[in-house]
C-alpha cells in the first residue's frame, strides 16, 4: 500500500499512522439543553463504540508522522486497499483561521 500524501507525494504506508473512520462526529449537547440523560448516553455510546465497519470505500484519518506530520483524510477501499483520494484534514498547516483565545 502506498499513500499519496497531498504534500509529500506517494510514500510507503509505514510512514503513516492510522486513526480510523473519519465519519463519527462527536455529539454536541448544550449544557442544560434539557436533553434526557438516556439520549445523551446513547449518542456518546454510538460515537465512541459503534462503527459502520464499511466493506468498500471508507473515509478515514491517516497521520503522516514519518513525513510532513499532517493529518490526512483518505478514501480507501477496505476490501482491495485501493485509494481513491487523499486530502488534508481540516486545519492542517496555517490554513485554519485564528480561533478566539489563541
Amino acid at each position, binding site marked *: 500500500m502506498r499513500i499519496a500524501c497531498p504534500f509529500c507525494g506517494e510514500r510507503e504506508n*509505514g510512514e503513516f499512522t492510522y486513526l480510523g473512520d473519519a465519519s463519527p462526529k462527536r455529539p454536541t449537547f448544550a449544557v442544560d439543553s434539557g436533553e434526557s440523560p438516556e439520549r445523551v448516553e446513547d449518542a456518546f455510546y454510538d460515537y*465512541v463504540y459503534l*462503527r459502520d*465497519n464499511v*466493506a468498500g470505500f471508507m473515509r478515514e484519518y491517516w497521520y503522516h508522522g514519518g513525513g510532513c506530520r499532517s493529518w490526512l483524510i483518505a478514501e480507501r477501499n*477496505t476490501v482491495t486497499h485501493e485509494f481513491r483520494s487523499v486530502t488534508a484534514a481540516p486545519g492542517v498547516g496555517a490554513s485554519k483561521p485564528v480561533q478566539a483565545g489563541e
Partner: protein
Amino acid sequence: MKYSIFSLAKAALSGHQGWTRAWRDPAPKSHYDVIIIGGGGHGLATAYFLANEYGIRNVAVLEKGWIGSGNAGRNTTIIRSNYGLPGNTGFYELSMKLWERMEQDLNYNAMVSQRGIINLYHSDAQRDAFARRGNTMRINGIDAELLDAVQIRKELPFLNYDSPRFPIMGGLMQRRGGTARHDAVVWGYARAADQRGVDIIQNCEVTGFVRDQNGKVTGVETSRGKISAGKVGMAVAGNTSRVAAMAGMKLPIESHVLQAFVTEAIKPLIPGVVTFGAGHFYISQSDKGGLVFGGDLDGYNSYAQRGNMPVVEDVCEGGMAVMPMIGRVRMLRQWGGIMDMSMDGTPIIDKTPIDGLYLNAGWCYGGFKATPASGLVFAHLLARDEPHPEAARFRLDRFRRGAMIDEKGQGAQPNLH
C-alpha cells in the same frame, strides 16, 4: 466410521480403498430449528455442542465458501488459558479443558499438543504484571509458573540473552498451553456434528435475513434459496459487521488484518510457544518443522485477507531482537486473516436486540484457542436463551454499561488491542 488403530490397519490392508467421506454434502432443507451462519471452527463447534449436549439435531451450518476457509485456516494454532481478567480467565480455562478431551470426544486426531507457552518479560514492571496474571490463574486452578532468567535459559537456550535493550529477565509459563492442528479442529467438529445429524452446507452464502411482521428473524435468504429457522446464530468473525448490517445492526466491531508467517522446515528447535514481551512477536514450531510466527495487526481497517510490508518488517525485527538465529531461515508463506476487533479486545456472545438472532463475534486475534468453549457457550445460549455461566460477561451491552473486559487496558481503539 469410527477411527482407531484397527480401522487404520484394516484400511491399510485393503489399500486404503475403504475410507468413507467424513461428512455428508446435503442439500439445504426448507426448515431447521437452528441455523448457524459460518462454517469455521466456532460455527461447527456450536453445531456439535447443540447436537451433543443440548439435543438439538435439526441444525444447519451455512458456509459461503468451504468449511475452515476463514480465520480457522488463517491463524497460528496457539491454545492457552493465561488470561487475567474476570470473564476471560474462566472462559479460556473452560476452553483449555475442552481441548484436553477434544480428540476423545470427537474421535479425531486434532494434534492437540500441550508443549507449553512462555511469555517473556523484560522489565521489573512487566515481571510484576506477569506475576499478578500468574497468581490470578493459579487462584482459578489454572497452571502457571513464573520462571526467572536462569530457568528460561534452560528451556530456551537459543534466545538473545545479551541484548542490553531488551534483557530477558524471565517469563510466565503455562505448561498446558501449546498448539493444535487448525484444519483438523474444523474437520473434527464437522465430522462429529455431521454424525449427530447436523447438515453442513458449503457454498451457501447468506444474502439476507427473513423477518416476520414483528421484526423477528425467522430464516435466511441464501445463494441456495430461502431457509426458515427457529433461531439463527452468527459465527462469522471477520465479517460480523457485514452480516449484521443485513439485519440493520451496527456493532462495536472493526475488521482488521493480522498477518502471520511460516518458514522452511528445520530440525526441532523451539519446544513450545514463545512470546517476546518487548515487541509484538510470538513463535512456535509446527510438527512439520516450519517456524510459525506473527506479530501486530497492520493497524488499518481491512477485509482484504492480506497485509502490507511495514508490518512484515516490524514482525521480523521483533524476531531478530529476541532470537537473532532465525535471521538465516527462509520465509515460505505469509497470510492475512480478518480479525473481528471488538472495542475492548474481548468477544461478544449474546442475544441481539433482534428476536431470533444470536451473536458470536469480536474474537479479535484470540479466536482459535477459544474454539471449543465458544461452541459450547454459544450452543448453550441458542438452546437455553440464557448465557452460559462462563460467558455471562461477554454481553453486547457491556460497552453501554461501562462493563468492558479490556485485558490490555487500551480503550476503544480496536487497532491497538
